[in-house]
Protein backbone atom coordinates (compact mmCIF):
# COMPACT_ATOMS: atom_id res chain seq x y z
CA UNK A 1 0.00 0.00 0.00
CA UNK A 2 1.30 3.45 -0.88
CA UNK A 3 0.24 6.70 0.72
CA UNK A 4 0.85 9.99 -1.06
CA UNK A 5 2.23 10.18 -4.53
CA UNK A 6 4.94 11.23 -6.83
CA UNK A 7 5.45 14.91 -7.70
CA UNK A 8 3.61 15.34 -11.00
CA UNK A 9 5.45 15.61 -14.30
CA UNK A 10 8.53 13.75 -13.19
CA UNK A 11 9.51 10.11 -13.47
CA UNK A 12 10.48 8.55 -10.17
CA UNK A 13 14.13 7.59 -9.81
CA UNK A 14 13.03 4.16 -8.70
CA UNK A 15 9.68 2.46 -8.80
CA UNK A 16 8.70 -1.03 -7.79
CA UNK A 17 5.35 -2.64 -8.43
CA UNK A 18 4.11 -6.07 -7.39
CA UNK A 19 7.60 -7.36 -6.61
CA UNK A 20 7.40 -10.91 -5.29
CA UNK A 21 10.34 -13.07 -4.29
CA UNK A 22 10.27 -16.61 -2.95
CA UNK A 23 13.44 -17.98 -1.40
CA UNK A 24 13.64 -21.56 -0.13
CA UNK A 25 9.90 -22.13 -0.61
CA UNK A 26 9.03 -19.12 1.53
CA UNK A 27 7.73 -15.74 0.37
CA UNK A 28 10.28 -13.11 1.38
CA UNK A 29 8.67 -10.28 -0.54
CA UNK A 30 5.00 -10.36 -1.46
CA UNK A 31 3.57 -7.77 -3.84
CA UNK A 32 5.93 -4.98 -2.75
CA UNK A 33 5.61 -1.63 -4.46
CA UNK A 34 6.82 1.91 -3.78
CA UNK A 35 8.50 4.82 -5.52
CA UNK A 36 11.50 7.00 -4.78
CA UNK A 37 11.51 10.50 -6.26
CA UNK A 38 14.45 12.67 -7.25
CA UNK A 39 16.45 13.83 -4.23
CA UNK A 40 14.14 12.07 -1.79
CA UNK A 41 15.44 10.52 1.40
CA UNK A 42 13.61 7.25 1.91
CA UNK A 43 14.05 4.96 4.89
CA UNK A 44 13.41 1.25 4.41
CA UNK A 45 12.46 0.13 7.90
CA UNK A 46 12.06 -3.44 9.05
CA UNK A 47 13.36 -5.87 11.63
CA UNK A 48 16.11 -8.38 10.91
CA UNK A 49 14.94 -10.87 8.32
CA UNK A 50 12.15 -8.63 7.05
CA UNK A 51 13.60 -8.83 3.53
CA UNK A 52 15.45 -5.51 3.31
CA UNK A 53 18.62 -6.97 1.82
CA UNK A 54 16.59 -9.14 -0.56
CA UNK A 55 14.73 -6.06 -1.73
CA UNK A 56 18.02 -4.29 -2.40
CA UNK A 57 19.35 -7.27 -4.32
CA UNK A 58 16.29 -7.05 -6.54
CA UNK A 59 16.75 -3.31 -7.10
CA UNK A 60 20.45 -3.82 -7.91
CA UNK A 61 19.60 -6.51 -10.43
CA UNK A 62 21.44 -9.23 -8.51
CA UNK A 63 18.24 -11.20 -7.94
CA UNK A 64 15.37 -11.62 -10.39
CA UNK A 65 11.94 -11.43 -8.74
CA UNK A 66 9.37 -14.13 -9.55
CA UNK A 67 6.88 -11.39 -10.30
CA UNK A 68 6.75 -7.61 -10.45
CA UNK A 69 8.40 -4.71 -12.19
CA UNK A 70 11.37 -2.59 -11.18
CA UNK A 71 11.92 0.63 -13.08
CA UNK A 72 14.93 2.90 -12.76
CA UNK A 73 14.52 6.46 -13.99
CA UNK A 74 11.28 5.55 -15.72
CA UNK A 75 12.98 2.92 -17.85
CA UNK A 76 12.59 -0.81 -17.34
CA UNK A 77 15.07 -2.16 -14.88
CA UNK A 78 18.48 -2.66 -16.44
CA UNK A 79 20.97 -4.95 -14.83
CA UNK A 80 23.98 -3.24 -13.25
CA UNK A 81 22.68 0.18 -13.86
CA UNK A 82 25.28 2.90 -13.54
CA UNK A 83 22.66 5.20 -12.07
CA UNK A 84 22.66 3.33 -8.76
CA UNK A 85 25.35 3.65 -6.10
CA UNK A 86 25.46 0.94 -3.46
CA UNK A 87 26.90 0.65 0.04
CA UNK A 88 26.57 -2.95 1.20
CA UNK A 89 25.97 -4.11 4.73
CA UNK A 90 29.04 -5.07 6.76
CA UNK A 91 32.05 -4.57 4.56
CA UNK A 92 34.52 -6.66 6.54
CA UNK A 93 37.83 -4.97 5.81
CA UNK A 94 40.88 -7.13 6.31
CA UNK A 95 43.34 -5.07 8.38
CA UNK A 96 46.10 -6.03 5.95
CA UNK A 97 44.36 -4.92 2.77
CA UNK A 98 46.73 -2.39 1.16
CA UNK A 99 44.12 0.20 0.26
CA UNK A 100 43.86 3.75 1.54
CA UNK A 101 40.60 5.62 1.83
CA UNK A 102 41.36 7.50 -1.40
CA UNK A 103 42.03 4.25 -3.28
CA UNK A 104 38.57 2.95 -2.40
CA UNK A 105 36.96 6.19 -3.55
CA UNK A 106 38.97 5.99 -6.80
CA UNK A 107 37.75 2.41 -7.34
CA UNK A 108 34.27 3.95 -7.44
CA UNK A 109 35.14 5.60 -10.74
CA UNK A 110 36.10 2.51 -12.69
CA UNK A 111 36.62 -0.39 -10.26
CA UNK A 112 34.63 -2.76 -12.44
CA UNK A 113 36.88 -2.28 -15.49
CA UNK A 114 39.57 -4.72 -16.48
CA UNK A 115 43.17 -3.62 -16.81
CA UNK A 116 45.38 -1.31 -14.78
CA UNK A 117 43.92 2.10 -13.84
CA UNK A 118 45.26 5.17 -15.58
CA UNK A 119 46.31 7.96 -13.28
CA UNK A 120 45.63 11.53 -14.16
CA UNK A 121 45.23 14.99 -12.68
CA UNK A 122 41.48 15.05 -13.41
CA UNK A 123 41.00 11.69 -11.73
CA UNK A 124 42.96 12.79 -8.69
CA UNK A 125 40.96 16.01 -8.44
CA UNK A 126 37.67 14.13 -8.66
CA UNK A 127 38.80 11.84 -5.83
CA UNK A 128 39.94 14.81 -3.71
CA UNK A 129 36.63 16.59 -4.28
CA UNK A 130 34.67 13.52 -3.27
CA UNK A 131 36.81 12.99 -0.17
CA UNK A 132 35.98 16.58 0.77
CA UNK A 133 32.28 16.09 0.08
CA UNK A 134 32.07 13.17 2.50
CA UNK A 135 34.36 14.79 5.12
CA UNK A 136 37.06 12.18 4.65
CA UNK A 137 40.08 14.38 3.91
CA UNK A 138 41.52 13.87 7.37
CA UNK A 139 41.98 10.14 6.86
CA UNK A 140 42.33 10.12 3.05
CA UNK A 141 45.73 8.42 3.23
CA UNK A 142 44.95 6.04 6.08
CA UNK A 143 44.61 2.34 5.40
CA UNK A 144 41.02 1.08 5.32
CA UNK A 145 41.74 -1.38 8.11
CA UNK A 146 42.63 1.47 10.48
CA UNK A 147 39.43 3.45 9.96
CA UNK A 148 36.64 3.51 12.51
CA UNK A 149 33.20 2.27 11.49
CA UNK A 150 31.89 5.79 10.84
CA UNK A 151 34.97 6.77 8.83
CA UNK A 152 34.74 3.64 6.68
CA UNK A 153 31.04 4.30 6.10
CA UNK A 154 31.83 7.79 4.78
CA UNK A 155 34.53 6.43 2.47
CA UNK A 156 32.09 3.80 1.15
CA UNK A 157 29.54 6.56 0.51
CA UNK A 158 32.22 8.47 -1.43
CA UNK A 159 32.97 5.30 -3.39
CA UNK A 160 29.29 4.93 -4.27
CA UNK A 161 28.73 8.61 -5.14
CA UNK A 162 31.77 9.34 -7.32
CA UNK A 163 30.28 7.72 -10.42
CA UNK A 164 27.41 10.22 -10.27
CA UNK A 165 24.42 7.97 -9.52
CA UNK A 166 20.84 9.26 -9.30
CA UNK A 167 20.04 6.81 -6.53
CA UNK A 168 22.17 5.82 -3.56
CA UNK A 169 21.26 2.59 -1.78
CA UNK A 170 22.67 1.83 1.66
CA UNK A 171 22.11 -1.43 3.51
CA UNK A 172 22.03 -0.86 7.29
CA UNK A 173 24.71 1.86 7.21
CA UNK A 174 24.05 2.79 10.83
CA UNK A 175 24.52 -0.69 12.26
CA UNK A 176 27.42 -0.90 14.71
CA UNK A 177 28.06 2.85 14.70
CA UNK A 178 28.41 4.84 17.88
CA UNK A 179 25.83 7.58 18.40
CA UNK A 180 28.04 10.42 17.17
CA UNK A 181 29.14 8.63 13.96
CA UNK A 182 25.53 7.64 13.39
CA UNK A 183 24.45 11.26 13.51
CA UNK A 184 27.32 12.36 11.25
CA UNK A 185 26.46 9.75 8.63
CA UNK A 186 22.77 10.69 8.71
CA UNK A 187 23.62 14.38 8.34
CA UNK A 188 25.94 13.62 5.43
CA UNK A 189 23.28 11.57 3.64
CA UNK A 190 20.63 14.22 4.26
CA UNK A 191 22.97 16.77 2.67
CA UNK A 192 23.60 14.48 -0.31
CA UNK A 193 19.87 14.14 -0.94
CA UNK A 194 19.10 17.83 -0.42
CA UNK A 195 22.02 19.45 -2.20
CA UNK A 196 23.03 17.08 -5.00
CA UNK A 197 19.58 15.78 -5.76
CA UNK A 198 20.66 12.17 -5.35
CA UNK A 199 17.84 10.05 -4.01
CA UNK A 200 18.82 8.09 -0.91
CA UNK A 201 17.24 4.75 -0.06
CA UNK A 202 18.53 3.49 3.25
CA UNK A 203 17.61 0.44 5.30
CA UNK A 204 17.55 0.42 9.08
CA UNK A 205 15.85 -1.51 11.84
CA UNK A 206 15.42 1.69 13.87
CA UNK A 207 13.83 4.70 12.16
CA UNK A 208 14.57 7.21 14.93
CA UNK A 209 18.03 8.40 13.81
CA UNK A 210 16.52 9.09 10.37
CA UNK A 211 13.50 11.14 11.50
CA UNK A 212 15.17 14.56 11.00
CA UNK A 213 16.02 13.92 7.33
CA UNK A 214 13.60 11.25 6.13
CA UNK A 215 11.05 12.34 3.48
CA UNK A 216 9.31 9.02 3.18
CA UNK A 217 9.33 5.66 4.88
CA UNK A 218 8.87 2.19 3.44
CA UNK A 219 7.90 -0.14 6.28
CA UNK A 220 8.60 -3.80 5.61
CA UNK A 221 7.09 -6.66 7.62
CA UNK A 222 5.88 -10.16 6.80
CA UNK A 223 7.04 -9.66 3.23
CA UNK A 224 4.61 -6.76 2.74
CA UNK A 225 5.44 -3.07 2.52
CA UNK A 226 3.63 0.15 3.30
CA UNK A 227 5.05 3.45 2.15
CA UNK A 228 4.32 7.11 2.69
CA UNK A 229 5.37 9.85 5.07
CA UNK A 230 6.13 8.91 8.65
CA UNK A 231 2.79 10.39 9.77
CA UNK A 232 0.92 8.31 7.19
CA UNK A 233 2.65 5.02 7.84
CA UNK A 234 3.76 4.86 11.46
CA UNK A 235 0.26 4.55 12.93
CA UNK A 236 -1.18 1.74 15.06
CA UNK A 237 -3.92 0.81 12.58
CA UNK A 238 -1.59 0.79 9.56
CA UNK A 239 1.16 -1.22 11.25
CA UNK A 240 -1.30 -3.60 12.94
CA UNK A 241 -2.71 -4.33 9.51
CA UNK A 242 0.81 -4.86 8.13
CA UNK A 243 1.94 -7.16 10.94
CA UNK A 244 -1.44 -8.92 11.14
CA UNK A 245 -1.15 -8.47 14.89
CA UNK A 246 -2.07 -5.61 17.24
CA UNK A 247 0.72 -3.07 17.30
CA UNK A 248 0.99 0.19 19.17
CA UNK A 249 3.02 3.26 18.31
CA UNK A 250 4.48 5.28 21.19
CA UNK A 251 5.90 8.78 20.87
CA UNK A 252 8.43 9.43 23.60
CA UNK A 253 10.59 12.58 23.64
CA UNK A 254 10.32 12.91 19.85
CA UNK A 255 11.22 9.27 19.35
CA UNK A 256 8.87 6.71 17.86
CA UNK A 257 8.65 3.28 19.43
CA UNK A 258 6.67 0.48 17.82
CA UNK A 259 5.57 -2.14 20.31
CA UNK A 260 3.61 -5.34 19.97
CA UNK A 261 0.59 -6.36 21.96
CA UNK A 262 -2.93 -5.23 22.64
CA UNK A 263 -3.53 -1.63 23.66
CA UNK A 264 -2.89 -1.39 27.37
CA UNK A 265 -5.94 -1.45 29.61
CA UNK A 266 -6.21 1.92 31.39
CA UNK A 267 -5.29 1.73 35.04
CA UNK A 268 -3.41 -1.55 34.76
CA UNK A 269 -0.11 0.03 35.65
CA UNK A 270 1.29 0.33 32.12
CA UNK A 271 1.93 3.93 31.13
CA UNK A 272 -0.69 5.20 28.71
CA UNK A 273 0.57 5.67 25.15
CA UNK A 274 1.13 9.16 23.92
CA UNK A 275 -1.26 10.15 21.20
CA UNK A 276 -0.10 9.21 17.73
CA UNK A 277 1.16 12.29 15.94
CA UNK A 278 -0.03 13.51 12.55
Amino acid at each position, binding site marked *: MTYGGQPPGEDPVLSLAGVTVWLGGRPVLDDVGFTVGRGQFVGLIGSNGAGKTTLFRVVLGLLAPQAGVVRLGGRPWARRSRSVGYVPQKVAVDPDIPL*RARDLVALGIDG*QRFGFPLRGAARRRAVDDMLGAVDAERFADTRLGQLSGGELQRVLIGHALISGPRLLILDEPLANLDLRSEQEVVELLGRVARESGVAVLLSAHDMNPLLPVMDRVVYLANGHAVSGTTEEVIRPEVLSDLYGHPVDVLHVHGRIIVVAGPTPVPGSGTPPPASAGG
Partner: protein
Amino acid sequence: MTATGPWGLVGSMLVAPGFFQSQPVHTAVLVGTVVSLVSGCVGVFTVIRGQAFAGEALSDMGTLGGSGSYLVGVSPLWGYVGVGLVVAGCMDLFGVERRRGRDVATGVVLGAMLGLSALFLYWDSTYHAASGATITILFGSLFIVSGITIPATVVLGVVGLATVAVLYRPLLLSSLSTDLAAARGVPVRRVGLAFLLLMGVSVSLSSVAVGTILGTALLIGPAATALKVARRPGTAMAMAAALGTAATWIGILLSYDSVDWPPHGRGWPVSFFVVTAVFVFYLLADLWSRRRAVAPHPGGRVRAVAGPASGTG
Protein backbone atom coordinates in the same frame (compact mmCIF):
# COMPACT_ATOMS: atom_id res chain seq x y z
CA MET B 1 92.11 -17.10 5.51
CA THR B 2 93.86 -13.81 4.92
CA ALA B 3 91.47 -11.11 3.94
CA THR B 4 92.26 -8.04 1.87
CA GLY B 5 89.62 -6.23 3.88
CA PRO B 6 86.25 -6.98 5.35
CA TRP B 7 84.46 -6.66 2.01
CA GLY B 8 87.03 -8.81 0.20
CA LEU B 9 86.55 -11.50 2.80
CA VAL B 10 82.79 -11.31 2.59
CA GLY B 11 82.99 -11.31 -1.21
CA SER B 12 85.16 -14.38 -1.45
CA MET B 13 83.03 -16.18 1.09
CA LEU B 14 79.78 -15.25 -0.63
CA VAL B 15 80.55 -15.99 -4.24
CA ALA B 16 82.30 -19.25 -4.90
CA PRO B 17 84.55 -19.42 -8.00
CA GLY B 18 82.75 -20.04 -11.28
CA PHE B 19 79.38 -18.83 -10.04
CA PHE B 20 78.85 -16.21 -12.74
CA GLN B 21 80.07 -18.52 -15.54
CA SER B 22 77.89 -21.49 -14.63
CA GLN B 23 75.11 -22.31 -17.11
CA PRO B 24 72.87 -23.98 -14.46
CA VAL B 25 73.22 -20.81 -12.39
CA HIS B 26 72.07 -18.65 -15.32
CA THR B 27 69.06 -20.89 -15.84
CA ALA B 28 68.28 -20.98 -12.13
CA VAL B 29 68.42 -17.18 -11.91
CA LEU B 30 66.17 -16.75 -14.96
CA VAL B 31 63.57 -19.32 -13.88
CA GLY B 32 63.76 -18.29 -10.23
CA THR B 33 63.23 -14.64 -11.07
CA VAL B 34 60.22 -15.29 -13.30
CA VAL B 35 58.68 -17.53 -10.65
CA SER B 36 59.28 -14.96 -7.89
CA LEU B 37 57.73 -12.12 -9.88
CA VAL B 38 54.55 -14.07 -10.59
CA SER B 39 54.33 -15.50 -7.08
CA GLY B 40 54.73 -12.06 -5.52
CA CYS B 41 51.95 -10.47 -7.55
CA VAL B 42 49.52 -13.41 -7.31
CA GLY B 43 50.46 -13.89 -3.65
CA VAL B 44 49.31 -10.41 -2.64
CA PHE B 45 45.81 -11.18 -3.91
CA THR B 46 45.92 -14.68 -2.40
CA VAL B 47 46.58 -13.18 1.04
CA ILE B 48 44.04 -10.38 0.63
CA ARG B 49 41.36 -12.85 -0.45
CA GLY B 50 42.14 -15.22 2.43
CA GLN B 51 42.85 -18.08 0.03
CA ALA B 52 46.18 -19.17 1.45
CA PHE B 53 44.79 -22.61 2.24
CA ALA B 54 43.47 -23.02 -1.30
CA GLY B 55 46.94 -22.07 -2.56
CA GLU B 56 48.60 -24.60 -0.26
CA ALA B 57 46.19 -27.31 -1.38
CA LEU B 58 46.73 -26.48 -5.07
CA SER B 59 50.47 -26.65 -4.57
CA ASP B 60 50.40 -29.93 -2.61
CA MET B 61 48.11 -31.58 -5.12
CA GLY B 62 50.68 -30.70 -7.78
CA THR B 63 52.67 -33.60 -6.32
CA LEU B 64 50.29 -35.93 -8.14
CA GLY B 65 50.92 -34.17 -11.44
CA GLY B 66 54.68 -34.04 -10.91
CA SER B 67 54.99 -37.71 -9.99
CA GLY B 68 52.68 -38.68 -12.85
CA SER B 69 54.83 -36.70 -15.27
CA TYR B 70 57.89 -38.73 -14.30
CA LEU B 71 55.96 -41.94 -15.00
CA VAL B 72 55.13 -40.86 -18.55
CA GLY B 73 58.45 -39.12 -19.03
CA VAL B 74 57.53 -35.46 -19.48
CA SER B 75 58.58 -32.34 -17.59
CA PRO B 76 56.91 -32.17 -14.16
CA LEU B 77 55.86 -28.60 -15.00
CA TRP B 78 53.13 -30.03 -17.25
CA GLY B 79 51.89 -32.21 -14.44
CA TYR B 80 51.83 -29.29 -12.03
CA VAL B 81 49.97 -27.02 -14.46
CA GLY B 82 47.53 -29.76 -15.54
CA VAL B 83 46.61 -30.72 -11.97
CA GLY B 84 46.63 -27.06 -10.86
CA LEU B 85 44.10 -25.98 -13.48
CA VAL B 86 41.82 -29.00 -12.98
CA VAL B 87 41.86 -28.67 -9.19
CA ALA B 88 41.29 -24.89 -9.38
CA GLY B 89 38.27 -25.51 -11.61
CA CYS B 90 36.92 -28.11 -9.18
CA MET B 91 37.42 -25.78 -6.20
CA ASP B 92 35.31 -23.20 -7.99
CA LEU B 93 32.60 -25.77 -8.72
CA PHE B 94 32.33 -26.73 -5.05
CA GLY B 95 30.76 -23.57 -3.78
CA VAL B 96 32.20 -20.14 -3.27
CA GLU B 97 29.82 -19.25 -0.48
CA ARG B 98 30.38 -21.91 2.11
CA ARG B 99 34.02 -21.48 2.92
CA ARG B 100 34.09 -23.95 5.79
CA GLY B 101 32.52 -26.79 3.85
CA ARG B 102 34.87 -26.09 0.99
CA ASP B 103 37.92 -26.31 3.24
CA VAL B 104 36.80 -29.66 4.59
CA ALA B 105 36.15 -31.03 1.10
CA THR B 106 39.51 -29.68 -0.08
CA GLY B 107 41.24 -31.39 2.84
CA VAL B 108 39.65 -34.75 2.07
CA VAL B 109 40.48 -34.58 -1.66
CA LEU B 110 44.00 -33.39 -0.84
CA GLY B 111 44.57 -36.45 1.33
CA ALA B 112 43.38 -38.81 -1.40
CA MET B 113 45.55 -37.16 -4.05
CA LEU B 114 48.67 -37.20 -1.88
CA GLY B 115 48.07 -40.90 -1.19
CA LEU B 116 48.02 -41.55 -4.93
CA SER B 117 51.15 -39.41 -5.24
CA ALA B 118 52.93 -41.70 -2.77
CA LEU B 119 52.20 -44.64 -5.05
CA PHE B 120 53.37 -42.73 -8.15
CA LEU B 121 56.58 -41.65 -6.42
CA TYR B 122 57.24 -45.27 -5.42
CA TRP B 123 56.76 -46.35 -9.06
CA ASP B 124 58.97 -43.48 -10.23
CA SER B 125 61.84 -44.72 -8.10
CA THR B 126 61.35 -48.43 -8.82
CA TYR B 127 60.37 -48.63 -12.52
CA HIS B 128 62.23 -45.59 -13.76
CA ALA B 129 65.13 -45.54 -11.34
CA ALA B 130 64.38 -41.82 -10.96
CA SER B 131 65.47 -41.85 -7.35
CA GLY B 132 65.87 -38.07 -7.26
CA ALA B 133 62.27 -37.60 -8.38
CA THR B 134 60.82 -37.50 -4.89
CA ILE B 135 63.16 -34.75 -3.70
CA THR B 136 62.84 -32.83 -6.97
CA ILE B 137 59.05 -32.85 -6.87
CA LEU B 138 58.57 -32.21 -3.19
CA PHE B 139 61.36 -29.69 -2.66
CA GLY B 140 62.23 -28.45 -6.14
CA SER B 141 65.60 -28.17 -7.81
CA LEU B 142 66.35 -24.97 -9.66
CA PHE B 143 69.76 -26.19 -10.88
CA ILE B 144 68.39 -29.09 -12.90
CA VAL B 145 65.70 -27.13 -14.77
CA SER B 146 66.34 -27.77 -18.44
CA GLY B 147 64.93 -28.16 -21.93
CA ILE B 148 61.40 -27.05 -22.72
CA THR B 149 60.71 -26.25 -19.06
CA ILE B 150 62.80 -23.06 -19.30
CA PRO B 151 60.89 -21.27 -22.10
CA ALA B 152 57.62 -22.73 -20.82
CA THR B 153 58.22 -21.17 -17.41
CA VAL B 154 58.95 -17.79 -18.95
CA VAL B 155 55.85 -17.89 -21.19
CA LEU B 156 53.56 -19.01 -18.35
CA GLY B 157 55.09 -16.33 -16.14
CA VAL B 158 54.35 -13.59 -18.68
CA VAL B 159 50.81 -14.91 -19.11
CA GLY B 160 50.38 -14.92 -15.34
CA LEU B 161 51.58 -11.33 -14.93
CA ALA B 162 49.37 -10.17 -17.80
CA THR B 163 46.39 -11.86 -16.16
CA VAL B 164 47.08 -10.04 -12.88
CA ALA B 165 47.19 -6.73 -14.76
CA VAL B 166 43.89 -7.44 -16.52
CA LEU B 167 42.07 -8.62 -13.37
CA TYR B 168 43.62 -5.96 -11.12
CA ARG B 169 40.66 -3.66 -10.37
CA PRO B 170 37.78 -6.18 -10.37
CA LEU B 171 39.90 -8.46 -8.16
CA LEU B 172 40.56 -5.64 -5.71
CA LEU B 173 36.87 -4.75 -5.54
CA SER B 174 35.65 -8.31 -5.14
CA SER B 175 38.37 -9.04 -2.56
CA LEU B 176 37.05 -6.11 -0.54
CA SER B 177 33.39 -7.06 -0.81
CA THR B 178 31.70 -9.38 -3.28
CA ASP B 179 28.44 -7.47 -2.82
CA LEU B 180 30.09 -4.18 -3.68
CA ALA B 181 31.76 -5.68 -6.75
CA ALA B 182 28.64 -7.48 -7.96
CA ALA B 183 26.56 -4.32 -7.62
CA ARG B 184 29.05 -2.49 -9.83
CA GLY B 185 28.72 -5.16 -12.48
CA VAL B 186 31.86 -7.17 -11.78
CA PRO B 187 31.27 -10.81 -12.79
CA VAL B 188 32.40 -11.90 -9.33
CA ARG B 189 32.05 -15.62 -9.95
CA ARG B 190 34.06 -15.58 -13.16
CA VAL B 191 36.71 -13.29 -11.70
CA GLY B 192 37.01 -15.72 -8.76
CA LEU B 193 37.43 -18.67 -11.13
CA ALA B 194 40.00 -16.78 -13.20
CA PHE B 195 41.95 -16.03 -10.04
CA LEU B 196 41.88 -19.67 -8.89
CA LEU B 197 43.20 -20.75 -12.30
CA LEU B 198 45.87 -18.05 -12.03
CA MET B 199 46.80 -19.40 -8.61
CA GLY B 200 47.03 -22.88 -10.14
CA VAL B 201 49.54 -21.63 -12.72
CA SER B 202 51.43 -19.60 -10.15
CA VAL B 203 51.95 -22.48 -7.68
CA SER B 204 52.93 -24.73 -10.60
CA LEU B 205 55.72 -22.31 -11.42
CA SER B 206 56.86 -22.05 -7.82
CA SER B 207 56.78 -25.85 -7.54
CA VAL B 208 59.42 -25.94 -10.29
CA ALA B 209 61.59 -23.68 -8.15
CA VAL B 210 61.00 -24.83 -4.57
CA GLY B 211 58.85 -27.95 -4.92
CA THR B 212 55.21 -28.76 -4.31
CA ILE B 213 55.48 -28.79 -0.52
CA LEU B 214 57.15 -25.40 -0.41
CA GLY B 215 55.27 -23.96 -3.40
CA THR B 216 53.20 -21.65 -1.24
CA ALA B 217 56.28 -20.41 0.64
CA LEU B 218 57.11 -18.21 -2.34
CA LEU B 219 53.43 -17.39 -2.91
CA ILE B 220 52.44 -16.40 0.63
CA GLY B 221 55.68 -15.45 2.39
CA PRO B 222 56.83 -12.45 0.33
CA ALA B 223 53.24 -11.22 -0.09
CA ALA B 224 52.50 -11.40 3.62
CA THR B 225 55.78 -9.59 4.29
CA ALA B 226 54.99 -6.83 1.80
CA LEU B 227 51.46 -6.42 3.16
CA LYS B 228 52.87 -5.63 6.59
CA VAL B 229 54.68 -2.65 5.12
CA ALA B 230 52.99 -1.41 1.93
CA ARG B 231 49.91 0.78 1.93
CA ARG B 232 48.97 0.39 -1.73
CA PRO B 233 48.28 -2.71 -3.78
CA GLY B 234 50.77 -1.80 -6.51
CA THR B 235 53.50 -1.18 -3.96
CA ALA B 236 52.67 -4.42 -2.17
CA MET B 237 52.95 -6.42 -5.41
CA ALA B 238 56.24 -4.75 -6.37
CA MET B 239 57.65 -5.36 -2.87
CA ALA B 240 56.49 -8.98 -2.79
CA ALA B 241 58.01 -9.62 -6.21
CA ALA B 242 61.28 -7.96 -5.16
CA LEU B 243 61.47 -9.84 -1.85
CA GLY B 244 60.76 -13.17 -3.54
CA THR B 245 63.40 -12.47 -6.17
CA ALA B 246 65.93 -11.49 -3.52
CA ALA B 247 65.21 -14.67 -1.55
CA THR B 248 65.59 -16.78 -4.68
CA TRP B 249 68.88 -15.17 -5.65
CA ILE B 250 70.22 -15.59 -2.12
CA GLY B 251 69.12 -19.22 -2.25
CA ILE B 252 70.84 -19.85 -5.57
CA LEU B 253 74.04 -18.19 -4.38
CA LEU B 254 74.25 -20.02 -1.05
CA SER B 255 73.26 -23.33 -2.57
CA TYR B 256 76.04 -22.96 -5.17
CA ASP B 257 78.49 -22.14 -2.39
CA SER B 258 77.35 -25.04 -0.25
CA VAL B 259 78.86 -27.61 -2.61
CA ASP B 260 82.01 -27.23 -0.49
CA TRP B 261 80.09 -27.51 2.76
CA PRO B 262 79.82 -30.82 4.62
CA PRO B 263 78.77 -33.33 3.52
CA HIS B 264 80.79 -32.76 0.34
CA GLY B 265 78.80 -33.56 -2.71
CA ARG B 266 75.83 -31.99 -4.40
CA GLY B 267 75.30 -28.94 -2.23
CA TRP B 268 72.43 -28.03 0.06
CA PRO B 269 68.96 -27.66 -1.45
CA VAL B 270 68.18 -24.26 -2.96
CA SER B 271 64.71 -24.32 -1.44
CA PHE B 272 66.12 -24.53 2.08
CA PHE B 273 67.90 -21.21 1.60
CA VAL B 274 65.04 -19.57 -0.32
CA VAL B 275 62.44 -20.44 2.28
CA THR B 276 64.75 -19.45 5.13
CA ALA B 277 65.34 -16.06 3.50
CA VAL B 278 61.58 -15.61 3.01
CA PHE B 279 61.02 -16.44 6.67
CA VAL B 280 63.71 -14.01 7.86
CA PHE B 281 62.20 -11.23 5.72
CA TYR B 282 58.81 -11.93 7.27
CA LEU B 283 60.17 -11.79 10.82
CA LEU B 284 61.96 -8.50 10.12
CA ALA B 285 58.82 -6.95 8.63
CA ASP B 286 56.79 -8.17 11.57
CA LEU B 287 59.23 -6.57 14.02
CA TRP B 288 59.22 -3.37 12.00
CA SER B 289 55.42 -3.14 11.83
CA ARG B 290 55.15 -3.82 15.57
CA ARG B 291 57.53 -0.97 16.31
CA ARG B 292 55.59 1.29 13.98
CA ALA B 293 52.30 0.34 15.64
CA VAL B 294 53.63 1.67 18.94
CA ALA B 295 54.23 5.10 17.41
CA PRO B 296 51.12 7.29 17.14
CA HIS B 297 49.44 7.11 13.77
CA PRO B 298 48.77 10.33 11.87
CA GLY B 299 45.04 10.90 11.75
CA GLY B 300 45.01 7.75 13.74
CA ARG B 301 42.43 5.85 15.63
CA VAL B 302 42.75 7.09 19.12
CA ARG B 303 39.87 4.88 20.09
CA ALA B 304 41.77 1.73 19.29
CA VAL B 305 44.68 2.47 21.60
CA ALA B 306 42.60 4.00 24.35
CA GLY B 307 42.65 1.73 27.35
CA PRO B 308 39.84 0.68 29.62
CA ALA B 309 40.26 3.99 31.44
CA SER B 310 38.54 5.89 28.63
CA GLY B 311 35.13 7.00 29.74
CA THR B 312 31.95 6.59 27.80
CA GLY B 313 29.22 9.04 27.15
